[in-house]
Each structure stands twice: as C-alpha cells, then as structure tokens.
C-alpha cells in the first residue's frame, strides 16, 4: 500500500447532525486503509446543491468556496462522504475555474475575512479515494468475508452526474461500487432501475414528502423483488432518505412492510475487516440491522 494520504474531512449537515453513526464508521475505517482525516474546523453546510443553490446561486457559490478555502489553507484536498456535498464542491470548483469573473466575485465577498481562495484544493468523494487504493489491496484487509450477503447497491445521483465533471471512466452503467461491495465477499444483486434517484434531492424531501417517499419506495420495491438483505449507499442524504422513507411509509401503511437495513459503505467494509458493530455505529439505525447481521457467517 502507498503511504498514507491526508485529507480535510468535510462533514456537512446530515452526517454529523442526524447520522453520526456513519461519521463514526468513516473515522474508524478510513485510517485503517491508509486514509488520514484532518478536521476541517469551522466548516459549514456545503450548501446543498439542489436546495440553497436553487434559492440563491451566488450564496451557494460563496459558501461552497469558503469551505474549499478552509481546505486550501490547510493544504489538503477535501474529502466528503455525501454525494450532495460532493456535487456542490465539484460544480463550484468548475464554475470559478471556467469563469474567472466568478472567482473575483467570490473573493470580493470574502474581503476582510482573512479568507484566501484560489480554487487550488480538489474535492474528492471518499469512495473515489477508496477505489483508488485498488481492489486487490483492499481485499487483503478482509478478515471476515460477508459470504452470502445480498446487497442492493445504490450509487445516488450527484456522485455520477453531470458525468462531464466527474472522474469516472464510464458515464453510465458504473461498476466501481459493485466491485467495492463484492471484495467484501458479499454479492451485489442487480435490480430494476438501479441508477435511479433516491428522491431526496432538489428540496423534494423537505417540501413534498409524499412524492419523495414514493420515489424511494419504487427503488425499495425493486430491491425487495430480488431479495436484498440491505441497501448500500455512499451518501448521507440518500442514507437519510432510505431510513426515513421506510419508517414514514410503514407508519402510513400501518404495517412494517419496509424493513431493509440501510448500510453505508464504510460500515460494510468495516464488517468485512472484522470490526465490531458499535465501532461502526450499526446499533444506531432506524431500520434494525440485526436481520442482515444474522446472515453474516461467524
């Protein structure tokens, strides 16, 4: 394995403030595979690419640039575990790099605040950094193969699109996350409309829960049709969506129809590395993870 790389860890909102169990799993697992995290003190909301950007694009660009400026000052690239935050940073960097006048506009907003910003730091999704380590290297870390576990992989949207501003070699039918899941010994089960949205973004989750839940349910139904043991994600907002939508829809139905454990990638990898449930926050889920854990061989 190559020497440890250090990144400024950008938390965002949903992860530290609603699903700290995911944050925990990231903090525990990443250093064990050679990725060091440094705190990005004083960072804020990214802000959300489909929400705040929809209300005031200049505000979105300025706040995103402030977060990137903090990483620039620390001398690291930003690493995030949320597709939304990732989308914001990728788009905000592209905007100021393609339009120098926008960079000047941001610098003007920063005047007197001691913030230097040249758009030098890159933004990476943690799954991108993990994938760069290589399947072979990562497989060496597996001590408890998750044989027999059927996983419904959910990539999410902003991790992949707009494809012109993303690092993946393909624009559609990606396989990198499936490869990362299968190195744990689990099986990534194909299902209908796998690359469909979770339904949370663009302010839909907040303003129109019935539509948002209905989109999530369509995906969950498709996963249930092929008998998955869990839905696997790499985004704190997709994670929230699948947890909350199942709970809300069950309440409306008056029956616990939707009980698919929602697992973040570092939790799955951590399990395969032999880590304990509590270290991975697997005991703090809205949808109980025990049925899935019971399927993992001792």
């Amino acid at each position: 394995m190559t020497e440890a790389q250090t990144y400024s860890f950008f938390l965002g909102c949903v992860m530290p403030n609603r699903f700290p169990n995911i944050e925990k799993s990231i903090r525990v697992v990443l250093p064990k595979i050679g990725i060091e995290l440094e705190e990005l003190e004083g960072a804020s909301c990214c802000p959300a690419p489909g929400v705040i950007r929809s209300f005031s694009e200049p505000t979105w660009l300025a706040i995103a640039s402030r977060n990137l400026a903090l990483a620039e000052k620390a001398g690291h690239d930003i690493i995030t575990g949320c597709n939304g935050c990732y989308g914001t940073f990728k788009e905000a960097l592209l905007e100021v790099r393609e339009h120098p006048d926008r960079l000047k506009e941001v610098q003007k907003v920063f005047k007197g605040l001691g913030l230097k910003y040249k758009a030098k730091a890159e933004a990476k999704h943690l799954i991108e950094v993990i994938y760069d380590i290589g399947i072979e290297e990562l497989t060496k870390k597996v001590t408890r193969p998750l044989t027999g576990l059927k996983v419904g992989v959910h990539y999410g949207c902003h991790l992949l699109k707009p494809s012109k501003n993303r690092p993946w070699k393909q624009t559609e039918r990606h396989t990198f996350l499936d490869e990362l899941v299968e190195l744990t010994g689990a099986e990534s089960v194909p299902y209908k409309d796998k690359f469909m949205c979770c339904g949370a973004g663009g302010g839909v989750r907040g303003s129109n829960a019935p539509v948002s839940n209905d989109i999530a349910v369509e995906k969950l139904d498709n996963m249930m049709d092929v008998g998955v043991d869990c839905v696997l994600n790499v985004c704190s907002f997709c994670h929230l969506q699948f947890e909350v939508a199942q709970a809300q829809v069950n309440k409306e139905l008056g029956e616990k129809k939707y009980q698919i454990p929602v697992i973040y990638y570092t939790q799955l990898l951590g399990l395969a590395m032999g880590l304990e449930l509590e270290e991975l926050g697997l005991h703090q889920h809205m949808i109980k993870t025990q049925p899935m854990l019971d399927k993992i061989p001792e």
Partner: protein
Amino acid sequence: MEKVDHAFVDEIVKAGADRIRTCIQCGTCSSVCPSGRRTAFRTRELIRKALLGLKEEVLSSPNLWLCATCHTCLERCPRQIKVTDAIIIMRNMAAEKGFMLPEHRRASMKLLETGHAVPINTANREKRVSLGLDEVPPTVHSHKDALDDLKTIMERTGFKDLIEKQEAEK
C-alpha cells in the same frame, strides 16, 4: 391571457443554460424524470413555456419545485441542454419573486442562524457522545467566529435579505 415576456429566455441563457433555445421538444427529459413518473411535472412543458416567455406561469408553478436534481435529463438530452441548470436558474428567479416554498424558507432560516441547513439537536448530541465522538461537531457549531464570518458572507450575497423578505411576505 398571460403576458408574454420575450426576455425571459434571454435571462435563462445569460445565467448559463446557453443551449436551451435548441430544444426540439423530443420529451426525453420528461420520459427519464423520476418525479414526472408520479406527478404532473413535465420537464418538456416547462422548457417549452420558458421558450414561449410564459414567465409568471413558470415561476409561480409549484411544479418547478418537484425536480430532485438527479441530472438524468441533462445527461440524456440529445441537444445537450443543461436542463437541471435551467431549472435551478428559474428557481432562483422564482425565489427572487417571492415564490419560495415554506419548508425551503425554514431550511434557509436555519442556515442563516446556525450555518447548517440541518443543525444539531439534543437526540444527536447524545448519539454522538455514545459513539465516542465530540458532542458537537467541529464545524461552525463549535466556532462562533467562523459562524460570524459565514453570516457576513450571507449578508453580502443578499441571502439574508432574500429570506427575511420572504418571511415578511408570508
């Protein structure tokens, strides 16, 4: 009959959706839209109305807020129109005109006050402690000076005024 605003599409083009005039109304955008599958939201119709200059109708429609920004239409558009960008541009115009949804106004208020659109709460403070994490994350939540800087930025970009104006008008 509604007033036609021919400058509407120029504004959208100027704000970055530069290929919008090349739309051939093929409907690919509507056919791949996860929100359109279950609602009356039709991306093709939205683009057509924008091109026709039906500004008021477009900006006042609640349907404008049904896009989940999944970018599938943008990826598939045969004319390579940045459809999602166009929607975000129109949403910015709608917000300026006071058509923000109440839930979005509330999330914006939280951002203005705390620096997080989704701030920490008691239950999650406890969860953090039980996980061995800092009770409050090392974000603006832990740094008042950083929050002050952020508030200055939101004043300078006009965000504070924009949201407070909506609060006053509701």
